[in-house]
């Protein structure tokens, strides 16, 4: 082999992806100026500059009526994660932007306290001093003892990467809504229970008071009332009033509109819970008796007690914890959901985006992607169908959805976003430097000047001098992204809005918001729902005005700020428009320039809302899928290692928090010891900080290892091509060897070349020691077979020789391969032993792309009607065959044995497409009568 040892040595997989922040330092002479925040453990890729926390986390805070804003818990619950980041301070920040919770216990003009079913508000907020950006989800929970019966809470996804928050807003919002819905459902249940108890108390109190009054009446029968009696009567009256009030509250909470429980699959208990309170209430009829009898019977029965009619003041009591406010079950569920969110959005934005693009692309080829891809959810197709049911041209989609819809430009966007991170920081300096300074910076930026460094310094300086840390910018919210699309479409008018205008607006905006808390826009949670976009739009503006004063400026500011990378990307991609090349400022403003790219005739309408729903759907699907996997592999001992297996945590919330990062199960062991599915489960578990959202069964790491080993195989064995050809053409490859570990390793490496029959599992058997049977060849396409030295192996080998026509046999001990000849061109491209690819993950991506191409060919071949069916009824039999041959050769450019690969894949496609959903569908064993050859090293 060509310098194989060297190559292997150099391509040894380092652990870069696992520990991105602990790279060994270079020798002094090679060192380049270091990234200024390297000492803090920051990486330029993650843009953690200035952030005091090492990675993204979720913070739950409460605006306590006793102590004010306070952090409650973080996910992951690990102090290392947020480090020196001031949670108290940040809690104050995020809670202070919640203006939805303007709840009034006694609204004027209403006799009774009225419960508002306040919708959650979702805002994006940036704290440039802390280097933290957050998606903040405010919600209100009910507490009978709280002031106004409400307790404002918020959940915040905190990241150092502003773009992640901005671009993943829809997804974050969808996921957090689910968590919030879960909390609120539990809370309503708990609140109703609390009200019932209170009612019982009041009822009991009333009875007691009534009796006392009667006694007093009897005692002094003088026709006038003592002051005592009057007091009692007053008290009684106030109890009566309180009862009515509470009954009204109970009615209100029970009449919670159930249409809002769209995501109620998360809250399975909801329906039954809402039904049980009446039965409980029925027991209130005779409090005294129930007090006696229930004392020993069942625990849930409540013993009423005498209470004072006046409610106690808030400082006298201890407020309920969040867990008490919600039902424990729901609380646990919420935590699971939150840690799922944390898991999904973890890592660098570019991973998130590429994986989203990946998934979007895969969804587009839902007919072929079962063959080699393994991160496809079965239900995805259905969603896709629904989505595409009302066919809508893709340019109708709002910009944020273009991540899903027009992936190719988005690739550029994500690349561009690294660069543009600089510019978004720039905005903060505008007010200080003024236009001149700003322009200077802009001009120098493209040159060798290190912008990031400079800007960051400037940034911190500024913060110190101007606003003394009071710099919270709420960058945008859900509504504002919609608004953004408005301004996009407006700005897409021929006149490119000049940087001048925008800047002045931005500046003015700055000046107005003297307190430097800028809430650009906000929206109620229901804004996704297509119904009331127009209706709520003005309200969003109004709210902005109340805070920022200059809503128009805010919006335009937003427009310039949010998609700078889009313009940047465009610039990088084509770079033709003159206005783009002017300066980066325009490039940033070029968010508008993006419009022709995706939304030429952008219609601002309710549609936006409609389209923004799907991500919620498929995330949910992901989640379900994971649950399935973990259930399937219940014995695979990997259930503890990821957020995907919700059921595992339901019992113990503390376990959930504690073991969040605790389990580091070895992938090697799992992928080898258990079959495919389980390796997948463990692989998608919590390990790599830069992991992609664990949507698929096969993780990055698994792929990486497989790719690395496949690369090794290709370099080591000159007959790798015919072996891979065997796999691709559906001829079972038996890997024969004595050492189990070696065989398993190669089997899992080569399994990347094995086409699947269906979505469920790869037809790969890692290790068998019993003689093979004909059914094995039907079922498995890659088998690791144990060679036993004892005479018992004669049976195994005899079976192997008997069925030799169905198999290719790779003997690892003797380094031989027996299989049919291969003379095509496809496999050499797929598996070039002189390839410069060194990393396993790169190679697996290369394989993926080549195989995707191949799938496309197979798709074309299988779905071209004229190739398979006679054009006319009278056509001769042989014509179709000759058409097929010429199509394969001329149109698809396939030679020799490559034809068989495509034919085999086409057969699998046909089988898969025509398979009835109900039928389990055993695959047929297809084979050829072709001679085999023996290859040796």
């Amino acid at each position, binding site marked *: 082999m060509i310098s194989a040892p060297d190559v292997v040595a150099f391509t040894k997989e380092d652990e870069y992806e696992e520990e991105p922040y602990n790279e060994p330092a270079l020798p002094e002479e090679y060192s380049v100026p270091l990234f200024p925040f390297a000492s803090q453990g920051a990486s330029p890729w993650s843009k953690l500059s200035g952030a005091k926390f090492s990675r993204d986390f979720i913070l739950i805070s409460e605006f306590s009526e006793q102590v004010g804003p306070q952090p409650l818990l973080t996910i992951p619950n690990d102090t290392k994660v947020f480090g020196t980041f001031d949670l108290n301070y940040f809690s104050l920040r995020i809670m202070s932007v919640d203006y939805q919770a303007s709840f009034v216990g006694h609204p004027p003009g209403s006799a009774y306290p009225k419960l508002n079913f306040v919708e959650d508000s979702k805002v994006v907020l940036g704290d440039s001093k802390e280097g933290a950006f957050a998606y903040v989800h405010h919600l209100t929970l009910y507490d009978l003892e709280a002031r106004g019966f409400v307790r404002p809470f918020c959940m915040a996804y905190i990241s150092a990467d502003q773009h992640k928050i901005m671009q993943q807003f829809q997804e974050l919002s969808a996921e957090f809504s689910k968590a919030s819905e879960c909390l609120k459902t539990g809370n309503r249940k708990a609140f109703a229970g609390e009200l019932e108890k209170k009612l019982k108390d009041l009822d009991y109190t009333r009875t007691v008071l009534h009796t006392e009054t009667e006694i007093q009446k009897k005692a002094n029968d003088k026709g006038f009332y003592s002051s005592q009696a009057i007091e009692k009567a007053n008290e009684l009256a106030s109890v009566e009033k309180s009862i009515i009030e509470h009954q009204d509250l109970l009615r209100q909470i029970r009449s919670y509109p159930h249409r809002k429980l769209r995501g109620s699959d998360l809250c399975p208990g909801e329906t039954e819970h809402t039904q049980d309170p009446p039965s409980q209430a029925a027991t209130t009829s005779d409090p005294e008796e129930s007090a006696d009898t229930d004392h020993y019977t069942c625990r849930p029965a409540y013993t009423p007690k005498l209470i004072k009619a006046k409610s106690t003041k808030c400082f006298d009591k201890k407020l309920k914890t969040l867990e008490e406010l919600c039902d424990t079950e729901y609380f646990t569920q919420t935590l699971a959901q939150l840690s799922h969110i944390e898991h999904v959005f973890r890592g660098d934005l570019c991973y998130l985006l590429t994986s989203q693009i990946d998934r979007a692309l895969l969804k587009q080829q839902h007919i072929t992607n079962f063959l080699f891809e393994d991160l496809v959810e079965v239900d995805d197709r259905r969603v896709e169908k629904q989505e595409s049911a009302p066919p809508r041209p893709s340019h109708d989609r709002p910009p944020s959805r273009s991540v899903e819809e027009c992936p190719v430009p988005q690739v550029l966007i994500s690349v561009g976003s690294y660069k543009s991170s600089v510019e978004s920081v720039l905005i903060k300096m505008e007010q200080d430097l003024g236009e001149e300074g700003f322009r200077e910076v802009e001009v120098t930026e493209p040159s060798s000047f290190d912008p990031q460094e400079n800007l960051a310094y400037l940034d911190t300086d500024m913060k110190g001098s101007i606003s003394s840390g009071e710099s919270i910018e709420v960058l945008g919210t859900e509504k504002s992204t919609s608004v953004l699309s408005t301004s996009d479409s407006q700005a897409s008018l021929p006149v490119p809005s000049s940087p001048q205008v925008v800047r002045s607006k931005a500046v003015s905006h700055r000046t107005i918001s003297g307190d430097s808390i800028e809430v650009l826009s906000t929206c109620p949670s229901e804004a996704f729902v297509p119904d009331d976009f127009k209706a709520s739009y003005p309200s969003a503006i109004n709210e902005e005005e109340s805070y920022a004063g200059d809503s128009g400026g805010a919006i335009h500011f937003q427009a310039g700020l949010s998609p700078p990378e889009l313009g940047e990307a465009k610039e990088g991609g084509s770079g033709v428009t003159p206005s783009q090349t002017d300066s980066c400022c325009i490039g940033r403003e070029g968010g508008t320039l993006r419009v022709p790219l995706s939304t030429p005739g952008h219609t601002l309408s309710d549609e936006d809302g409609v389209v923004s729903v799907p991500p919620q759907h498929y995330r949910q699907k992901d989640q379900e899928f994971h649950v399935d996997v973990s259930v399937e592999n219940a014995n695979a001992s990997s259930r503890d290692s990821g957020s995907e297996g919700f059921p595992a945590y339901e019992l113990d919330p503390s376990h959930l928090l504690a073991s969040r990062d605790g389990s580091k199960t070895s992938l090697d062991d799992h992928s080898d010891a258990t079959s495919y599915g389980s390796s997948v489960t463990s692989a998608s578990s919590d390990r790599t900080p830069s992991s992609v959202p664990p949507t698929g069964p096969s993780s990055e790491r698994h792929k990486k290892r497989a790719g690395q080993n496949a690369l090794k195989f290709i370099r080591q064995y000159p007959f790798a091509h015919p072996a891979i050809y065997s796999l691709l053409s559906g001829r079972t490859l038996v890997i024969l060897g004595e050492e189990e570990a070696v065989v398993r390793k190669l089997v899992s490496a080569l399994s990347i070349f094995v086409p699947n029959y269906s979505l469920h599992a790869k037809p790969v058997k890692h290790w068998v020691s019993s003689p093979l049977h*004909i059914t094995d060849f*039907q079922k498995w396409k890659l088998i690791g077979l144990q060679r036993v030295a004892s005479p018992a192996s004669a049976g195994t080998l005899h079976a192997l*020789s008997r069925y030799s026509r169905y198999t290719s046999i790779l003997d690892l001990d003797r380094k031989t391969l027996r299989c049919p000849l291969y003379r095509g061109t496809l496999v050499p491209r797929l598996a070039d032993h002189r390839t410069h690819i060194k990393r396993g993950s790169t190679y697996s991506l290369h394989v993926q792309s080549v195989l995707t191409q191949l799938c496309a060919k197979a798709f074309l071949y299988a779905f071209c009607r004229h190739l*398979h069916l006679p054009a006319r009824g009278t056509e001769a039999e042989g014509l179709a065959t000759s058409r097929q041959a010429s199509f394969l050769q001329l149109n698809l450019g396939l030679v020799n044995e490559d034809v068989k690969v495509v034919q085999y894949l086409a057969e699998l496609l046909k089988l898969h497409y025509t398979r009835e959903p109900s039928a389990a569908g055993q695959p047929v*064993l*297809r084979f050829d*009568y*072709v001679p085999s050859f023996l290859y040796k090293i």
Partner: protein
Amino acid sequence: MLRWLIGGGREPQGLAEKSPLQTIGEEQTQNPYTELLVLKAHHDIVRFLVQLDDYRFASAGDDGIVVVWNAQTGEKLLELNGHTQKITAIITFPSLEACEEKNQLILTASADRTVIVWDCDTGRQVQKVSCFQSTVKCLALLQRLDVWLSGGNDLCVWNRKLDLLCKTSHLSDTGISALIEIPKNCVVAAVGKELIIFRLVAPTEGSLGWDILQVKRLLDHQDNILSLVNVNDLSFVTGSHVGELIIWDILDWTVQACERNFWDPSPQLDTQQEIKLCQKPNDVSIHHFTWDEENVFVAVGRGLYVYNLQMKRVIACQKTAHDSNVLHVAKLPNRQLISCSEDGSVRIWELREKQQLAAEPVPTGFFNMWGFGRVNKQASHPVKKQQENGTSCSLELIGDLIGHSSSVEMFLYFEDHGLVTCSADHLIILWKNGERESGLRSLKLFQKLEENGDLYLAV
């Protein structure tokens, strides 16, 4: 071939060197079966396959269950449970034209001494008879009279409603091994070495009930009769354990022709000595026949013979067609012959007119290599015989199907769906023509596309 796998040393029982068995290798261009589907449902040897209609067949075996399959998709349609012991005979039982219920029925006999009538459309057990004294070993249907017969130690006649019409006295302890219908309301039963001809008497005005009369006993065979078939309107054929093939006149039950030369020295063979020496009786037992207009194809021991009815002689033979006894043969319409054997393989042969006499399955150098021995003699036999006989045709191996790991008991050929084989390894394999299946799948694909409205036809 696989020596490299075993790593030298002891050679396994490789086919090539052990016997002069003709092998074909891995390149089989004429073999159409390039797709297979393994059907698993039985837990014991599968012995019987019976075709129900164009696309269904039933399988039965030693586990006592009957399974109905779809021959196109390989889907298991029904599983019929009722017998407690192995099934010994199975026949289809076509429903009457007049009958409203058109359901396909089958009759199964089992070692538990019952016969069950099944409805193959619903899986229902229609009726069960359990009054047998002995195991029923064969079943025959006389459609003309609308009765069926069961043969065990005695012969019983039943009507469609499973009423016993009449029965013979106890015939023998070994029982009837085969039973066929011949004209004039007669049946031939093979009982041990002899053939017994019975006549059925249907009720007329004179007699009240059915009766069955023994008409004649034929004692021409010298050993147990293993196979008995109705070849055409003129004759039926029997074959015995010692390789006697007798062709009988179907009307007067006389011997039309007799072929004993599979083992017995016959006048026209020079090789008699060698044959006597080398062949044990079980090597020439005739297990199965099949026939067409001209020829009877006989599975004799491990070999295949083609006997021409007009010329009254063997016109082609393959002395060692398999490694082990051939259990079933069938003639396909396209001059192809399929045989299956205890060695677990199925072979496809083609009957070809021979141009010259040189079709030697063994190279001549073989003699020197191996010296005298059984192999040598076996090998030399067909060559010489062919030369002496002047056989005018040859059987060419055009393909073999290897899938079963144990004896292939029987197979069934579907014109449209390929071949079904059943085996002692409990499996049934559906062999299909890969190209045709591919075409069918395409057809299905475009039908489905059309149904979904996804088909875009370029104008």
